[in-house]
């Protein structure tokens, strides 16, 4: 799915907050300062103070020289981060994924959230209105990538909503500092005459890297959506994990079963609450002697049925070696998928679907015993090389779009690898008269062909195959082919058996 991000910029984060505490300072020139390297450094200045030319980064003594009546307040360390965190928590109401963007911004991942506010425009308006009404000056923008949203929020002039896929247009007129670069890089870019992103956007990335370092091409790629940018939500999703410490070390299979049942019940309760089902579960047993026992199961469809999972684990319990005893059980579900309540009841209600669940449960059991990779289901593929005409289907419910072809003869049994045979065949393109396969000579009585199958030259090189359907004197039917042209010392192979 297309991702959408909002970047919120609090242009006067700490001073706005301070004004909330001290409303009487509304029109006053004041600064917030903190000690740094033995002097008081201005961290933020109010709007009236800014008008006087007092900005962050100045020393308080210098500012007092410009404007003696300046009011100076001490800023507690970390206060801006705390403030930002509180604002991020407030924004959880809009989306579950909110990340801090220090020193004065927030990043919201809003994919799939905006429709609840009837569209991106209303969504964005609601956010800015609420933040503004609580006293903060904010600018926000929506875009496909964090980089673009960040740039538009801080440097954009026209619109705050960047349509999907128009990152390049939106960025082109902005200055290079909109790309979240270091001051040094920005300065050298200005020296080069790069005042707008569009003047270097189309340059080869390698050239930019050589001149300005790795950061610039990376930031550019992130803004364009070519490079993934991870964000760390303030509320990390909790891992699906249950613990069961034991008073006495467990040594018996029955004990392990009881422990497993309790863990599964707790885990499935949580999965039910969140509308999820697990696809993979790991049971870990921490032994008294420090050894770790581990069994793993996988399922073919998301499930949260305790009975079914217990059965799957039941096949594996015998492989746990409790040794002196297990003192801590840990059940983890590393892979979970959405399983809505309706889906589950639907499966259990209708007749045909119930069968599906039963079959899935059976396949799960087989998968646990023999490995999930042994279960195959095939769908037609859009290719003509005989071995490639089918593709594996991952999901058992996947339907085929292409029809199964029956217009060309194909053998019911196909050898995984064609086997070399000795053949007597008249030239140029006649079917063989006799062939020797596994030491036995077969005299050909009927033949059909050739059907030429060319290599899929865009994938692999090699000779074409000329296929013949052959029937020998005993009535057995074969699929043979000649590799390459008849006059270049061709090789003959047997590839299959017709019914």
């Amino acid at each position: 799915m297309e991702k959408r991000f909002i970047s919120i910029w609090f242009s006067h984060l700490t001073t706005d907050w301070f004004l909330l505490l001290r409303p009487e300072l509304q029109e006053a020139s004041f600064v917030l300062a903190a000690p740094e390297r033995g002097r008081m450094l201005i961290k933020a200045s109010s709007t009236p103070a800014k008008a006087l030319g007092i900005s962050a980064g100045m020393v308080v003594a210098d500012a007092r020289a410009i404007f003696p009546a300046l009011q100076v307040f001490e800023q507690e360390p970390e206060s801006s981060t705390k403030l930002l965190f509180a604002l991020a928590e407030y924004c959880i109401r809009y989306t579950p994924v909110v990340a801090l963007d220090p020193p004065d911004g927030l990043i919201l991942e809003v994919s799939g959230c905006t429709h609840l506010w009837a569209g991106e425009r209303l969504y964005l308006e609601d956010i800015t209105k609420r933040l503004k009404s609580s006293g903060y000056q904010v600018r926000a923008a929506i875009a496909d990538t964090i980089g673009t949203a960040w740039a538009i929020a801080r440097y954009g002039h026209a619109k705050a909503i960047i349509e999907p896929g128009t990152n390049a247009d939106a960025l082109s007129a902005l200055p290079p500092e909109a790309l979240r670069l270091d001051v040094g890089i920005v300065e050298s870019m200005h020296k080069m005459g790069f005042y707008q992103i569009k003047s270097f956007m189309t340059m080869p990335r390698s050239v930019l890297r050589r001149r300005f370092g790795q950061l610039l091409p990376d930031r550019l790629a992130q803004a364009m959506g070519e490079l993934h940018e991870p964000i760390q939500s303030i509320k990390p999703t909790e891992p699906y994990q249950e613990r069961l410490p034991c008073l006495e070390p467990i040594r018996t299979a029955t004990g392990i079963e009881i422990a497993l049942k309790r863990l599964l019940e707790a885990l499935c309760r949580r999965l039910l609450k969140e509308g999820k089902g697990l696809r993979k579960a790991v049971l870990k047993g921490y032994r008294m002697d420090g050894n770790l026992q581990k069994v793993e199961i996988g399922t073919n469809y998301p499930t949260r049925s305790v009975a079914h999972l217990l059965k799957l684990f039941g096949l594996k319990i015998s492989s746990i070696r409790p040794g002196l005893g297990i003192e801590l059980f840990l059940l983890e579900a590393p892979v979970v998928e959405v399983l809505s309540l309706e889906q589950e009841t639907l499966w259990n209600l209708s007749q045909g679907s119930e069968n599906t669940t039963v079959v899935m449960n059976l396949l799960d059991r087989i998968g646990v015993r023999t490995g999930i990779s042994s279960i195959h289901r095939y769908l037609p593929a859009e290719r003509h090389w005989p071995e490639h005409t089918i593709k594996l289907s991952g999901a058992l419910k996947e339907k085929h779009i292409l029809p199964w072809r029956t217009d060309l003869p194909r053998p019911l049994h196909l050898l995984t690898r064609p086997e070399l045979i000795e053949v007597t065949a008249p030239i140029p393109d006649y079917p063989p008269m006799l062939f020797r396969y596994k030491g036995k000579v077969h005299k050909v009585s009927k033949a059909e062909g050739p059907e030429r199958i060319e290599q899929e030259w865009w994938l692999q090189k090699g000779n074409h195959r000329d296929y013949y359907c052959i029937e020998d004197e005993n009535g057995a039917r074969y699929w043979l082919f000649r590799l390459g042209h008849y006059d270049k010392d061709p090789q003959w192979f047997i590839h299959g058996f017709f019914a």
Partner: protein
Amino acid sequence: MERAENKIEIIERLKQQILSMQGFKAPIAQPISTNLGSMESAFPNQIFPGGVIHEFLSPDAESAAATSGFMAVLLSQLIGQGTGPCLWIGSKRTLFPPALAFFGIQPDRIIFIDLKMDKDILWTVEEALKCDALSAVVGEISEISFSESRRLQLAVEQSRVTGFMHCFNPDKIRNTTSVARWKISPIASVLEEGMPGIGHPRWKVELIKIRNGKPGTWYMEWHTDHFKYLTKPNLVASISLEKAG
């Protein structure tokens, strides 16, 4: 006369009793209809026995292909009437799924399970046969012992799933509890006079053993959706015609 009629009735009843004791429960709700035609007279109650184990013997790769073809025809009927999918369990599988479409099966209705050891195959077949949501189970195995076949028989008696066991090493087969034992081998196809190429698949179908039925041998030809029976003289005549021509 009256006593004689009575006797026949009693024998008939006893036969039914024996049938039910041997695992042929009262004819199942929906009798499985096949397109086997006249061959059905060889089966008990003139109905293709579903919900039991059928055994197929193939000594070589050529007859294995023919057997797969015949099984596919039977499977297409079973899948068409049941709701569930079919499991095809074996090792070193050579079956080419797209070709099943020639025998009336949508290849995506079949789930293949490819295992390495016979022990795993037997376990999987047994588990699958216990699952009544499947329409049929095919197991490919080199040989099967008496006790193994008995386990499978017990499984199908509960679930009424039809099982096909395809054995590749028939020399070692002694005695099993399977209800039917088949051997299918390919025979030369016959074309209309003057036509080039290969004709429809033709098989010699031997029903070596059928519990409470009449074993026999048939010669048949598969035409995209039905069988055509060939009488022996006709077969020979057409072959000799072929040779003459």
